[in-house]
């Protein structure tokens, strides 16, 4: 398959929109210190202030600048998102490729375990664990990754299996190539596109999870998170304050996820030629 994923994504409407949104969020995260004049954790005098010149989105219930929180919140989402995404992907590759190439009992065992995890709802497990272990950022990332690599592993295994039957892998085996060599030089390059798609899915899921868990009150209280902002804002829904506190956080979160959705849709379409063409996207 000689489709340049990058080109395909850039070509489709959805892809372009998605990428723009993502870039916006990434820019917000990276440039946060430049774009805001307050430290998000700093408590100033006035709490629940309306938006003004010095506080563009006003302040929250403990006097923190909401605009700053919004920007720094992007960092949390992206860090968790990409962190979980990468680790998930690596685990998925490790188990997916090995299961496909090694086969036999190992494959059977791995697949049963993978399927078992897929059936269990991730969030509930995290809630349980989080009740006991107060998770800080690294623990949260590891925990989420440990529970979300399975879906990708299945897909990667399937792809590897179909590649396994293809000629060039057999040919290299016939030259005496070891399994690791085969995986590195023959399998990975061919599944790169699918890995990318899985990665984007993973990031999206993780961003969603992190926000949700923060919303429930599970997460590192030291970190600024959009989920947490929404949770705090919720208690004050009887005041006007939700307009500039709740909504921006929610919208920021949604735009991030939408951006990821659109990009993954474009990537998916690039992979499956039947879905290409005559799309909005």
């Amino acid at each position, binding site marked *: 398959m000689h489709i340049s994923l990058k080109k395909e994504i850039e070509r489709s409407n*959805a892809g372009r929109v998605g990428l723009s949104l993502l870039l916006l969020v990434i820019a917000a995260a990276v440039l946060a210190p430049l774009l805001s004049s307050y430290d998000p954790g700093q408590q100033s005098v006035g709490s629940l202030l309306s938006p003004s010149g010095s506080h563009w989105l006003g302040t929250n219930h403990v006097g923190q600048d909401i605009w700053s929180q919004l920007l720094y919140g992007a960092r949390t989402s992206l860090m968790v998102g990409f962190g979980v995404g990468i680790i998930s992907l690596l685990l998925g590759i490790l188990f997916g490729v090995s299961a496909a190439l090694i086969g036999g009992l190992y494959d059977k065992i791995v697949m*049963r*375990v993978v*399927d*078992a*995890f*897929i*059936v*269990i*709802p*991730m*969030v*509930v*497990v995290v*809630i*349980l*664990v989080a*009740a*006991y272990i107060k998770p800080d950022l690294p623990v949260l990332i590891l925990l989420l990754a440990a529970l979300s690599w399975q879906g990708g592993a299945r897909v990667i295994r399937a792809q590897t299996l179909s590649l396994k039957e293809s000629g060039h892998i057999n040919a290299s085996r016939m030259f005496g190539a070891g399994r690791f060599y085969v995986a590195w030089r023959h399998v990975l390059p061919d599944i790169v596109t699918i890995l990318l798609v899985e990665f984007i899915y993973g990031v999206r899921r993780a961003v*969603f999870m992190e*926000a*949700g868990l923060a*919303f*429930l*009150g*599970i997460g590192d209280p030291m970190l600024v998170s959009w989920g947490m902002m*929404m949770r705090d804002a*919720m208690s004050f*829904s*009887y005041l006007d304050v*939700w307009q500039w506190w*709740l*909504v921006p956080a*929610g919208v920021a*979160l*949604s*735009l991030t*996820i*939408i*951006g*990821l*959705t*659109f990009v993954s*849709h474009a990537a998916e379409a690039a992979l499956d030629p*039947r*879905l290409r*063409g*005559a*799309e*909005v*996207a």
Partner: protein
Amino acid sequence: MLNRRNLVTYSIAFLFILALNFLMPRMMPGDPLSAIYGDEVLVAMAPEFKAHLVESFALDEPMWRQFGAYILALFQGDMGYSYYYNASVFSVIIGSLPWTLLVVGSSLVLSTLIGIALGIESGWRRGSRTDRTMLAGLMSLNGFPDFFLGLVLLLVFGVLMGIFPLAGALTPYSGLSGFSLVVDVMKHMALPVTALTLAHLAGVYLLTRNTMITVLKAPFMLTARAKGLSQRRLKYHHAGRNSMLPVLTVTGIWLGRLVTGALFVELVFAYPGVGYLTYQALLTRDYPLIQGIFLIVAIAVLIANFAVDLLYPKLDPRVSYAH
């Protein structure tokens, strides 16, 4: 399909849930009882009760004995005692479960029906304005987390427009019955169900649409057209019927997502289901309750998956029980 492979999977999942539930408190440093019940509670507990707990949990015995006691207790329906609610964990959860089932069930049915219907229409008219609009719209909708949707709905329809109630499953102390009770329940459940349905809809829609696009190219569609059948029959009886199947396959897996979503949505609407219960339990560090909820919810999802696996062959004749 139900077969040996799936049974193994479900068994592993079941064991994992049980094991995790068992091990979490016992792996914490310090007194296991304090891990199970929380320090604040222990302080207030009468010593005789504490001794009774130690005995029933077999806390001074080796691990495997503890596990045995744990399993035994479970089978007897004893999931521990919620100090906070002053009742057995089991009864507390059972009280909340029906509300969650109501919301999740309704959302599942609605989102599946609407999603499939829209997906069929979209796939049938692929490339048209209708299709492209629906696609863009639903993909965007897909990006909104359910709790945010819930919040927006609450604020717009509840706070601003005052059409729907702001919290709870029933109007408290109303003493309604019969038809007006049903109406009351529905009014309270309208927004949560809407939020959950909207969040879940897009996934169903996209899958159905994609399947529809593939199905329309299949040889039997040409055969059907040659038979001079009406467009309607082609769309629903032939293409539609085939396009529904993948959605039903993944319904089981997606159920987990719905349940999770319900957790968040209940929180937003203070809807007295298991989700809201979880939130309360976390706030008050009511460990036995958290554990009980975890167990019940996880196993419920497992059972639902199982049920879908059983039902699927009825709908897709290509799949049989024999493997």
